[in-house]
């Protein structure tokens, strides 16, 4: 069972940590928790691995990056090897095996235009065991808000 203060801190820290001189004091002030207590809770969650990272969340396109979501059909015997090879590329941030006709899905971004992304996808397409690969670039974004109330 999560105690009240821990929940308050983690939920607030997932929403926004103010970009001010004493961010954890400001965060705490909004929920009635001291700066020391906020830091204590965040450190504990970081240590336990519940928090992966505390830092900036950026709008990739506005930093001059292009990205896409791609789906692949890979021969089952080759799936793990292909996934590992693709995951080596730093611009691949998510890579999952999923149920269905397309069994491997990943996101890939590169600095520059979409042509660079397409080139990267084409190189992944050539890996042994890959039977099909489609890129599904974004037409319109409706929501990005990862928030997991604990």
């Amino acid at each position: 069972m999560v105690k009240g203060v821990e929940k308050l801190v983690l939920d607030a820290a997932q929403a926004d940590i103010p970009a001010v001189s004493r961010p954890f004091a400001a965060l705490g002030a909004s929920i009635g928790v001291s700066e020391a207590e906020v830091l204590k809770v965040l450190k504990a969650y970081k240590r336990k691995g519940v928090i992966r990272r505390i830092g900036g969340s950026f709008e990739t396109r506005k930093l001059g990056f292009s990205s896409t979501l791609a789906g692949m059909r890979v021969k089952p015997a080759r799936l793990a090897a292909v996934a590992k090879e693709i995951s080596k590329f730093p611009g691949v941030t998510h890579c999952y095996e999923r149920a269905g006709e397309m069994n491997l899905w990943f996101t890939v971004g590169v600095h520059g235009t979409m042509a660079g992304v397409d080139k990267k996808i084409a190189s992944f397409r050539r890996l042994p065991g890959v039977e099909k690969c489609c890129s599904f670039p974004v037409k319109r974004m409706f929501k990005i808000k990862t928030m997991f109330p604990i």
Partner: protein
Amino acid sequence: MTLEESVVRALQGDIPLEPAPFKKIAAGLGLSEEKFLGVLAELKRRGVLRSIRAIVRHKRAGYSANAMVAWKVPEGRAVSFGKTAAASPAISHCYQRLTRPGWPYNLYTMVHGRSRAEISKVVAGLVKKTGVKDYLALESLREFKKTSMVYF
């Protein structure tokens, strides 16, 4: 590297968990805290920096189930579908994407829940609200990689 790139680089990883983290980061870049906070404010104003926040490993926070659900939505209804889906707290990401031959799905929603049953409930709710019945729930079977982008 430009000043903004240095600031992005400093924030794409972890900020130190101490009372004045930006003062420390700024010092490492040879900047005053005031100057650093000024760049942050500017990046936020332009929408480059969405926010500074804690990013949670959802499975460890109790959200053990997730599915990427791909929907086939008539083009004219894509916007209303997207807005309806975006309003659901269980949906973290919602995009309209290009379709491909043999792959007519144009709306994508990332659905998170504490169980598969919770996911099914969210999906059923969206079917009921939007009338869109043609979808694929692509449940994640194995995670190979999940990181944040390293920009500079």
